[in-house]
């Protein structure tokens, strides 16, 4: 068991190490950031001074070594554009992204779970078929395009909701978030709904598949034989059993919401990490690109590690397989 966990830890660090080389070398081969940073009328001496200052005169391998040793001490370099530590910039924008992702997770669950249970409970009804067709449509709709339509319809045409920015930020129990003010909520609603759309489709399908399986189980037949009302069977027996697989999957899906928020944040000018990375790619702000990619890769690697280890505790079959390897 311990051997398996240690092995997985080792693998995770190997992945991170390989990714860091790939990302660092790749980013440092693209474009010429000096050209974008410097005044076009600057003379040769000035250009050379900037190159030296940024450490770009050294070979990539040396730059990488410098980056790696600093990164292990928590310094991921400083932004070329903002002149601030890249890590600080990203951490500043992280709460905005997290609040967007959390709110959209919330929206997708309250919409998708009831629809999914209904579609699984009465698979042949007209309404269920409509729900399933709708979920394919939801799968097929490009998130960024739906975001544009939302802005056009709700913000420009109807003028109900704001289309850009994060709004007022309130504070509750020491946590600062725009979810705590009315103005903030009005700002977060459209982007969160946009981000939720894709998730709604997948959670509907997951819930429906689960419901269809559970409904065939003996304990549901038994519950019916006992004469329990259908309402109680759905709300207690089906819902409870379905939540276990859904919660596990959602843990992982939360990560993908954060990754997909780059798109939504760009459309709605939401000041989160996703918009920061896209802006940094445009500006060739190498340290921020590398720092963001490394942070998000680390996040994913450890999220997966945590889920895998959790599984070994929950499911003995996984544990045995891991030992045999």
């Amino acid at each position, binding site marked *: 068991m311990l051997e398996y966990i240690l092995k997985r830890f080792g693998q995770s660090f190997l992945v991170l190490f390989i990714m860091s080389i790939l990302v660092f070398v790749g980013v440092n081969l693209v474009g010429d950031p000096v050209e974008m940073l410097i005044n076009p009328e600057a003379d040769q001496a000035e250009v050379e001074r900037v190159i030296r200052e940024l450490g770009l005169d050294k070979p990539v391998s040396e730059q990488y070594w410098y980056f790696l040793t600093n990164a292990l001490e928590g310094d991921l370099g400083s932004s070329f554009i903002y002149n601030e530590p890249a890590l600080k910039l990203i951490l500043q924008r992280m709460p905005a992204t997290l609040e967007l992702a959390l709110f959209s997770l919330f929206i997708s669950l309250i919409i998708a779970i009831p629809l999914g249970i209904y579609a699984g409970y009465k698979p042949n009804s007209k309404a269920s078929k409509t729900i399933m067709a709708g979920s394919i449509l939801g799968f097929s709709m490009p998130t960024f395009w739906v975001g544009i339509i939302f802005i*056009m319809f709700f913000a420009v045409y109807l003028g109900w909701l704001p289309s850009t920015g994060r709004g007022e930020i309130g504070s509750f129990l020491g946590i600062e978030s725009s979810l705590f003010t009315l103005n903030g909520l009005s700002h977060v609603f459209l982007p969160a709904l946009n981000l939720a759309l894709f998730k709604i489709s997948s959670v509907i399908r997951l819930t429906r598949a689960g419901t269809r399986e559970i409904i065939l189980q003996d304990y549901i037949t038994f519950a019916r034989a006992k004469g329990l009302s259908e309402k109680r069977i759905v709300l207690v027996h089906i819902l409870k059993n379905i939540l276990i697989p859904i919660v596990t999957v959602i843990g992982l899906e939360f990560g993908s919401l954060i990754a997909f928020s780059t798109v939504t944040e760009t459309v709605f000018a939401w000041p989160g990490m996703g918009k920061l990375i*896209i802006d940094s790619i445009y500006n060739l702000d190498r340290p921020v690109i590398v720092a963001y990619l490394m942070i998000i890769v680390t996040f994913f690697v450890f999220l997966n590690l945590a889920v895998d280890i959790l599984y070994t505790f929950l499911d003995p079959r996984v544990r045995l397989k891991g030992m045999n390897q």
Partner: protein
Amino acid sequence: MSSRDQNFKNFWRDFSVNKIAVFALFIFLSILFVAIFAPLVSPTDPYDLNSVSIMNSRMPPMSEDFAGNLYVLGTDGAGRDMLSAIFYGLRVSLGVGVLSGVFALIIGSIFGISAAFFRGKYETIIMRIVDIQLSFPSILVALIILAAFGKGVEKTIIALILVQWAYYARTARASALVEINKEYIDSARCLAFSNTRIMFKHILPNCLAPLIVVGTLQTAHAISLEATLSFLGLGLPITEPSLGLLIGNGFEYMYSGDFWISIFPGIALLITVASINLVGDHLRDMFNPRLQ
């Protein structure tokens, strides 16, 4: 009647049960036709600088210019006919999506089938890489590649191949593992056929059904992902205007109410992706032994 005709007949009989899927297939084939023959079916050549006039920019749908040309879907900011731009855009989007899908299918099948065939350390390493890659969302994988290596046609295609190959590898390995235990593989081994021949002439054809299902759904996904990346400005360059770039162009005019510039290319993208998904979804049900 040859057995191939018979096979096709059986396939079509099963496929045509679902009317929605038949309709989706018809729509997809029409889109494919338009994409392939874009220069012939488009009213104008949107990238011919001589025929495009800035005087005609941002005209609403169904308007005419002074020369009496009708713009059914309006014009964009540079005065290009939207309908023609969408036809040309479909060509780029479908081309990139299908090309990357085919390459990913080939690469994924080679790794998946050989992993199932040779087993041992080789299989462990390949499948470990597949697992690790699949634990990242596709957009993140594409973002890493394009952020690290820059944008461009080839780089976008490479990114899409790298995003997809793992799905094919996993599917190919799973079905190859089932096939390898069957008797015809034993007899092929007794005949001392080469490993390559057994893998690609005997195992591969029998793994094609699940690979085609994954292929349709992945291609839809690739088209949509390419549009997203191009919209973000990380995918294709402006010289290859895919649907995603067209939508991105319209984004600028969103606040002035010129809805048609980004809505119509989006609808074209949606119909394309949805029709492929509907066909793929039905194929999956057809090939799923549990539902038969």
